[in-house]
C-alpha cells in the first residue's frame, strides 16, 4: 500500500470490532485537532482517535523540533503532549476524547506541519549537549536578547488566561491496605487482602482495571473477567481508576491523584494506610538506535493497545524487533489486524536492527544481516523497567540483576509488599498466586492479628531477558528532552562523568516522564561510556511526585481561615475599611480617621479591641510568674490594680507588652498584643512546664472568650456609667490603672479597667463574647447625646503615637533590647530573676545603644514615611544613624509627629537630625524631650 509522503496519511485506519475494545461505536465524538475537525468514539483517547484517522505526527521535539508520533500510546507517551482547550501539557495517549474538545500541538510555529524551529535540525551538529553553556557569553549586553529568543523555544503550551471554572478538591481516606496497580496482580492482591478481613483501596492509572490483560489473548481475557468480578463482589474493596499514586511520604501518607471524578477537575486523595502492596507491573522500554524517534516507531505494548483496545491499525507494513513474549504476541496481533509483517527480527537469535530511516516518518529499516526493508511501522519489544519508585520511596533499595536485565527492589520495610511483574517474572497463574498471597499477608499485617503466623508469599523468579538497551548506532535516549546517546557520550567525554552530572548537564530524565521510560537506557549508555557496570553507575531512586500533580489538586479547596470579632458584621455594614492583622480582619477606619481622633479627644469614641491577647491566670503563684515574665515589679500588685508590663526574651529583646490586672486574690487577667498572643502563650507554658512545674498557676487563653471594647475620651466615664450597674466609676473610687468586675449592660462576669493607650480617660470593657454586639449597640445608643462614634485601628495608631506609646514589632524589631525602647523606667535590674535580665544588665552597662525617641520634623507639614532613614553626618549621604518607626499627621497638634531610633549620641533632646525621604530630599527633625507629643504629663488620663 502506498503511503503518501508528508505526514498525515489521511484515511480510515479503524479496524472492525475487536473482542476487547474499549471504544463505544454507538457514541461517535467530534473534536478539533489544530483547527481541523476529526471523529472518534467515546472511549478513544485523543491519540487513538487521531491515529484511527491516519494522523501520524503529534508534536515536534524539544530542541531539534523533529516530528514525533505515537511511541507508547499511553499516558507516558513523551511525543503526545498537547493542549486541550485552556489546559497545557495534556497526555494525548491517556486523555479520552470529549465532544467539542479543541486540541492543539504545543511549542510549534507556525504549524505542526511547517515548523520554522525545525531549522534547529540543520544546525544540530553544532548544538551538542549544553551548547548554550559554551556560547552566548559575549558580548554581555546581548544576553537578554539571546534569552528572549531561547524563551521562544520553550516546549510548553500557554498559561491559562483565567482562573479555572472547574473545582479541585481533596479527600482523606483511611484503609488497612492500599494496592497500587489494578492489573492481574493488583486485582488478585486486593481480593486476597479483602478476603483476609482488610479494608482495601485499589488504585489503577488506566480507565479500567486489567493492566496488560486488557489486550491479552482469549483465555487470559477470561481470567480478566473473573478477576474483575471478584473485585466487584468484594464489598471492602474501593476501586479508583484513572488514578495514579504520586508519592509516599513520612508518616504513612500516600498521595493519589484521581481524575474522572464527576464534578471535579482533579482530586488529591491522601491515603493513610497500614500496608501497601505495590503491583505496578512493568513499563516497556524503547530501544536506542538511530532513527528511533521517527513517527512510526512504536513499542509492542503501544501496538497491542491500539489494535485491541481502540481498534486502530497502527500502520500498513511493519518490521518487528522482538526479544520476548509480548513482542511475539504483538507480531501476531499485527498480522490479525491486516498489517503486512514484513520481517520479525529476533535478538534471541542474534538478529538486530541497525538503523531506522526516513524523512519525517519511518520509511525503511537496515538490519544486522545487511538487508534493508521498506516499511512504515517499526515495533520494538526489547525489555521492561519495573517502576520501583514507590518501593524506593518507602525505603527499599534498587539493585540491578544482569540476567533479568532489570532492577529489583530489595530490603522492603515491614509495611510494603511487592506483587506481580514488579517483583519478578512468571506466567499468569504464578503472578495471580503470588499476588493473592501477598494480599492476604498484607491484610494479616494490617489487622495485626495477635500470634498469627505469616502467610507464605511465594517468590517469583527474576526471570531472564536479553540485555538490550542500545543498538550499534546512536539513537534518542530521552525523547522528551531530545537527548541522544551521542549527547550522553559527549557529556561523559567532556568530563561530566557521573550519572548525576550527566543528568544535570544534558537534562536527560528531566522531562515529563521523569525517567520512567528512559532512565535505565540512560544508565546503560553512561555505564558503557564510563567503563562501569550498570549496577555501579546508578540506581533508580524514586522521589515524589511519581506523576505530575496539578497545583489545583494540591491546593484543594484552599481554605484560608480568618478570625472575626463578634462585632465584625457591624463594622462591615458601617463602611469599615478592612485591615488584615495576622489572621484577624479588623476595622481600619470608617471613612475619616482624623475625625475619629478628634471625636476621642473631644467627646468619646469606642473601638473594638477583641483581638487583644487575653489570658486568665489563676493560682497562688501568679505573682511569681509575673515577676519572672515582666521586666518590672509585680509582687505587690494589689487586688483591683492594673500594671503595664514588658516581656523580653533571654537575649534582652522586647518580646511583647500589655497590661495585667489583679481581679481577685488569685485571679489575674494578662493581656498582650493580638499578633503576639500565640508566642506569649508558648512562652508562658515553656517556663511553667520546664522550670517551674511546681508553681500553683493555671493559664487559660481567653482572647476569644471576651469581646473587648475600649471606650475613650473625656466623656467616657459618663457613657460607661450608663451601662454599668454595680461598679462605682467615680474618680476616687476607680482611679487610673484599676480593674473591677461586675455587670455591664445587664451581663454578669464582665471586666472593666482604666488604662490609657490613647492618652484619654478611658475604660476598657471585656464582656463575654456572645454579648459583644449588644454591648456595642448599647454604647452607641446610650452615648448618642454625648457624641459617641466608633474609631478604628488607624485612629488608635494616631492617638497612641500622640501619646508616644510604642507598638512592639513596629517601634521595636528583632534586635531591640529593652534599654533601646524608652523603657528604662520599667526595667528593674535589681529585682529577682526575670527573663532577659542578664542581657539587659549588660546593655545597661554598655550604655551606648541606639534609643527610641520622639521626633518632630522641623517643618510640621512634612510627613516622613515610616522607615525613612536618619543620617549622621550631612545630607549628602553619610552614615545611617537610625530610622523613623512611626509617623503620622497629628489632628490634635496639626503637624507631623514621629517615633524613631537614633544612635545614642544623637538622642539628646533638642538634637536636630537629618531624615532622608524616599524621594531623595533630606529634612531636619528635632529630638523631643519625651516620647509623648501630646499631654506628656498624662493629665487627661488620670481624670
Amino acid at each position: 500500500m502506498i503511503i503518501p509522503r508528508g505526514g498525515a496519511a489521511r484515511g480510515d485506519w479503524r479496524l472492525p470490532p475487536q473482542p476487547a475494545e474499549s471504544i463505544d461505536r454507538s457514541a461517535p465524538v467530534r473534536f478539533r485537532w489544530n483547527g481541523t475537525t476529526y471523529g472518534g468514539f467515546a472511549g478513544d483517547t485523543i491519540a487513538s482517535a487521531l491515529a484511527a484517522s491516519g494522523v501520524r505526527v503529534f508534536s515536534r521535539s524539544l530542541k531539534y523540533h523533529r516530528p514525533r508520533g505515537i511511541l507508547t500510546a499511553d499516558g507516558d507517551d513523551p511525543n503526545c503532549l498537547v493542549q486541550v482547550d485552556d489546559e497545557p501539557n495534556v497526555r494525548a495517549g491517556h486523555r479520552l476524547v470529549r465532544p467539542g474538545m479543541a486540541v492543539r500541538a504545543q511549542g510549534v510555529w507556525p504549524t505542526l506541519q511547517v515548523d520554522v524551529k525545525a531549522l534547529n535540525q540543520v544546525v544540530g551538529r553544532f548544538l551538542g549537549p549544553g551548547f548554550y553553556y559554551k556560547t552566548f557569553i559575549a558580548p554581555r549586553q546581548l544576553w537578554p536578547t539571546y534569552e528572549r529568543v531561547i524563551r521562544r523555544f520553550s516546549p510548553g503550551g500557554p498559561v491559562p488566561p483565567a482562573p479555572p471554572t472547574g473545582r479541585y478538591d481533596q479527600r482523606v481516606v483511611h484503609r488497612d491496605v492500599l494496592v497500587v496497580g489494578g492489573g492481574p496482580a493488583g486485582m488478585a492482591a486486593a481480593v486476597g487482602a479483602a478476603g483476609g478481613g482488610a479494608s482495601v483501596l485499589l488504585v489503577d492509572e488506566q480507565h479500567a482495571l486489567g493492566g496488560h490483560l486488557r489486550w491479552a489473548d482469549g483465555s487470559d481475557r477470561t481470567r480478566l473477567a473473573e478477576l474483575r468480578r471478584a473485585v466487584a463482589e468484594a464489598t471492602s474493596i474501593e476501586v479508583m481508576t484513572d488514578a495514579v499514586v504520586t508519592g509516599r511520604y513520612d508518616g504513612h501518607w500516600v498521595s493519589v491523584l484521581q481524575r474522572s471524578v464527576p464534578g471535579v477537575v482533579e482530586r488529591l486523595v491522601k491515603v493513610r494506610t497500614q500496608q501497601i502492596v505495590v503491583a505496578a507491573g512493568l513499563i516497556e522500554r524503547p530501544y536506542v538506535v538511530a532513527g528511533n524517534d521517527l513517527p512510526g516507531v512504536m513499542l509492542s505494548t503501544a501496538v497491542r493497545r491500539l489494535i485491541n483496545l481502540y481498534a486502530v491499525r497502527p500502520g500498513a507494513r511493519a518490521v518487528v524487533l522482538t526479544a520476548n513474549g509480548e513482542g511475539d504476541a504483538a507480531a501476531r496481533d499485527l498480522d490479525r489486524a491486516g498489517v503486512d509483517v514484513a520481517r520479525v527480527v529476533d535478538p534471541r537469535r542474534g538478529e538486530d536492527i541497525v538503523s531506522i530511516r526516513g524523512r519525517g516518518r519511518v520509511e525503511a529499516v537496515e538490519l544486522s544481516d545487511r538487508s534493508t526493508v521498506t516499511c512504515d511501522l517499526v515495533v520494538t519489544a526489547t525489555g521492561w523497567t519495573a517502576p520501583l519508585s514507590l518501593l524506593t520511596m518507602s525505603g527499599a533499595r534498587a539493585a540491578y540483576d544482569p540476567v533479568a536485565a532489570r532492577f529489583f527492589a530489595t530490603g522492603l520495610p515491614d509495611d510494603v509488599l511487592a506483587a506481580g511483574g514488579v517483583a519478578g517474572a512468571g506466567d499468569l497463574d504464578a503472578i495471580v498466586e503470588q499476588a493473592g498471597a501477598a494480599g492476604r499477608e498484607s491484610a494479616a499485617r494490617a489487622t495485626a492479628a495477635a500470634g498469627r503466623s505469616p502467610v507464605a508469599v511465594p517468590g517469583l523468579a527474576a526471570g531472564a531477558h536479553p540485555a538490550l538497551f542500545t543498538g550499534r548506532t546512536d539513537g534518542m535516549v530521552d525523547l522528551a528532552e531530545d537527548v541522544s546517546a551521542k549527547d550522553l557520550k559527549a557529556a561523559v567525554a567532556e568530563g561530566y562523568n557521573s550519572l548525576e552530572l550527566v543528568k544535570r548537564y544534558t537534562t536527560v530524565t528531566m522531562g515529563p516522564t521523569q525517567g520512567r521510560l528512559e532512565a535505565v537506557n540512560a544508565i546503560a549508555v553512561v555505564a558503557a561510556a564510563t567503563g562501569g557496570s550498570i549496577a555501579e553507575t546508578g540506581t533508580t531512586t524514586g522521589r515524589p511526585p511519581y506523576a505530575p500533580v496539578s497545583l489545583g489538586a494540591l491546593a484543594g479547596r484552599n481554605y484560608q481561615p480568618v478570625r472575626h470579632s463578634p462585632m465584625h458584621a457591624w463594622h462591615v455594614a458601617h463602611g469599615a475599611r478592612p485591615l488584615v492583622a495576622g489572621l484577624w480582619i479588623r476595622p481600619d477606619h470608617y471613612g475619616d480617621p482624623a475625625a475619629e481622633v478628634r471625636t476621642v479627644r473631644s467627646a468619646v469614641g469606642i473601638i473594638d479591641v477583641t483581638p487583644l491577647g487575653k489570658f486568665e491566670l489563676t493560682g497562688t503563684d501568679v505573682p511569681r510568674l509575673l515577676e519572672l515574665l515582666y521586666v518590672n515589679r509585680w509582687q505587690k500588685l494589689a487586688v483591683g490594680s492594673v500594671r503595664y508590663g514588658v516581656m523580653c526574651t533571654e537575649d534582652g529583646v522586647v518580646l511583647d507588652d500589655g497590661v495585667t490586672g489583679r481581679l481577685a486574690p488569685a485571679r489575674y487577667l494578662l493581656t498582650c498584643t493580638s499578633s503576639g498572643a500565640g508566642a506569649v502563650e508558648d512562652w508562658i507554658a515553656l517556663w511553667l512546664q520546664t522550670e517551674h512545674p511546681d508553681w500553683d498557676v493555671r493559664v487559660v487563653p481567653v482572647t476569644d472568650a471576651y469581646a473587648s471594647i475600649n471606650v475613650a475620651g473625656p466623656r467616657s466615664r459618663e457613657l460607661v456609667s450608663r451601662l454599668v450597674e454595680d461598679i462605682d466609676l467615680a474618680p476616687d473610687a476607680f482611679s487610673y490603672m484599676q480593674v473591677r468586675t461586675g455587670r455591664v449592660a445587664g451581663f454578669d462576669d464582665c471586666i472593666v479597667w482604666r488604662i490609657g493607650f490613647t492618652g484619654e480617660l478611658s475604660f476598657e470593657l471585656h464582656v463575654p463574647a456572645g454579648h459583644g454586639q449588644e454591648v456595642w449597640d448599647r454604647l452607641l445608643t446610650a452615648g448618642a447625646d454625648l457624641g459617641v462614634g466608633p474609631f478604628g485601628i488607624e485612629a488608635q495608631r494616631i492617638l497612641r503615637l500622640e501619646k508616644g506609646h510604642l507598638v512592639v514589632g513596629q517601634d521595636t524589631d528583632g534586635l531591640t533590647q529593652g534599654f533601646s525602647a524608652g523603657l528604662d523606667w520599667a526595667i528593674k535590674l535589681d529585682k529577682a530573676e526575670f527573663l532577659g535580665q542578664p542581657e539587659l544588665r549588660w546593655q545597661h552597662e554598655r550604655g551606648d545603644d541606639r534609643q527610641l525617641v520622639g521626633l518632630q520634623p522641623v517643618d510640621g507639614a512634612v510627613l516622613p514615611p515610616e522607615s525613612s532613614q536618619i543620617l549622621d553626618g550631612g545630607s549628602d549621604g553619610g552614615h545611617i544613624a537610625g530610622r523613623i518607626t512611626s509617623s503620622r499627621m497629628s489632628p490634635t497638634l496639626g503637624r507631623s509627629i514621629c517615633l524613631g531610633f537614633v544612635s545614642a549620641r544623637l538622642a539628646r533632646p533638642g538634637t536636630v537630625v537629618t531624615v532622608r525621604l524616599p524621594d531623595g530630599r533630606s529634612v531636619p527633625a528635632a529630638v523631643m524631650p519625651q516620647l509623648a507629643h501630646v499631654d506628656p504629663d498624662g493629665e487627661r488620663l488620670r481624670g
Partner: protein
Amino acid sequence: MSRLPRYSAVGLLRRGVTGRRWPVVWRHRDLEPSYDVIVIGGGVHGLATAYSLAKNHGITRVAVLERAYLGSGGSGRNTAIIRSNYLTPEGVRFYDRSLKLYETLAQDLNYNVMFSQRGHLTLAHTDAALRTMRWRAEVNKLERIDSEVIGPADIAGLVPELDVSSHPRYPVLGGLFHPPGGIIRHDAVVWGYARAADALGVALHQQTEVTGIDVEAGRVRGVRTNRGSITAPVVVNCTAGWSSLVCDLAGVAVPITTYPLQAAVTEPVRPFLHTVVVSGTLHVYVSQTDRGELVFGAATDPYPSYSTRGTLEFTESVAAHVLELMPSLAPLRVLRQWAGLCDMTPDFSPIMGRTPVEGFLVDIGWGTYGFKAAPVAGETMAELIATDRVPKLIRAFDLDRFADGRLVGERGAAAVGH
C-alpha cells in the same frame, strides 16, 4: 595559565565542522600528601574560594574536597535567585559586590552561567511588610543600589497574572522592586568555577569525604579522608548543610541549626513570568526558567532535620499560596520536588573568617541566601587566606559576634526565612 580553549560560538562552529571533541572540563587528580590550602566542600563557595585563591593571589596548591559530585549539595538544589536588596548596610554592600561579580562571571569564567537580570519583586500584604520594604529600599538607595517601593498598579504592569485586586486575606499593598535581581543557571556556576579553577591548577577531588580534622596545640595540621590523609596549614570549611558536623571534627562550636528547604518545579509552559515574585506573608517565591518551568520555593521546614525528602505538606502549601497570587495557574502540574539543607544562624547572616582553631577558617551559616553570595565569599575568603587580614566587607560576619552580642539584623530581608 589557562590550558583550555575558549568557549565561544566560533568554537562551537569549528568543532561542529571538524567533529573534534572539547577537552575535559576538569581533571581527575591523585590526592597529594600536602597542600597549601584545603577547601572542604565542592559547592559554589568552595570552588569560588579555590578559584579566587588561584586567580587573584596565585595560590594554586589548593585541594577542594567534595564527598559526592561537585555541586551535589545546596549548590545544586537552590532556586538560583540573585539579588542584593538586603536590610542592613553591611548585608547590602556584601551582596551587591556579589551581584556585580555575577554580572561579569560568564565572561570571567568563559562559561555561560545564564544570569538573567529580569527584576526581583517582593510583595507586601500588610503595613508591617510595607514598612520593611521601605526600610530595605531606603538602605539600598543610600548604598546606590536600584530598589524602590512600587504600588499595586505598577505591580500589575510587571506581572499581569498577579491578582492585585482587593483580596480579602492577602491584599497586595505594594512591593519592593529590585531591577538588578534575577535568576541564574546554578549548575553552570558550579561547572564554570570548577573548570576555571582546574585550569589554574587547583586540584578538585570528588568522592572524597573528610572523616577527621587534625588539630594540634590549637592549630590545624590537616585532614583525614576516605582516600588518605593530607596536611595543610589552612583548612576552610565551605560546606552547607553539614557545616556543624565538619566544625565538630575540628572541635569548633557554632550557632547553626540545619533546616530543610524545599522547592518544586512545574512542567514547562510558554514563558509569561519575566520577574521573580516573592511574598513573605505567603511564604512563597516563584520564577520561570527559560525552558518555561515555574520554580517555587517557600520557607524552611518547621523543624530541623538532615533529611532531603520532600513532603506533601510543602507542595500543598506552596500550591495554595501560589494560587492565592495567581489563580489561573491551577492546571499547571508539579513535575518534581526536592529539598536542600540550610544552615540557619540566629541573625540570618553568614559566619565567615577565623575560629578559635588557628588555620581553620569557616565560610558557613549560609541559610537560605548562600548561592547568591558565592562570588564575593570566594573573593573575600581568598583574600583572608592570602593576606591574613579580614576584608572589610566581611568583618561584621565574624564568629565572635555571637559571644559579643553583636548580631547583624538581616531577618527582615531574608525573603521567606523564619
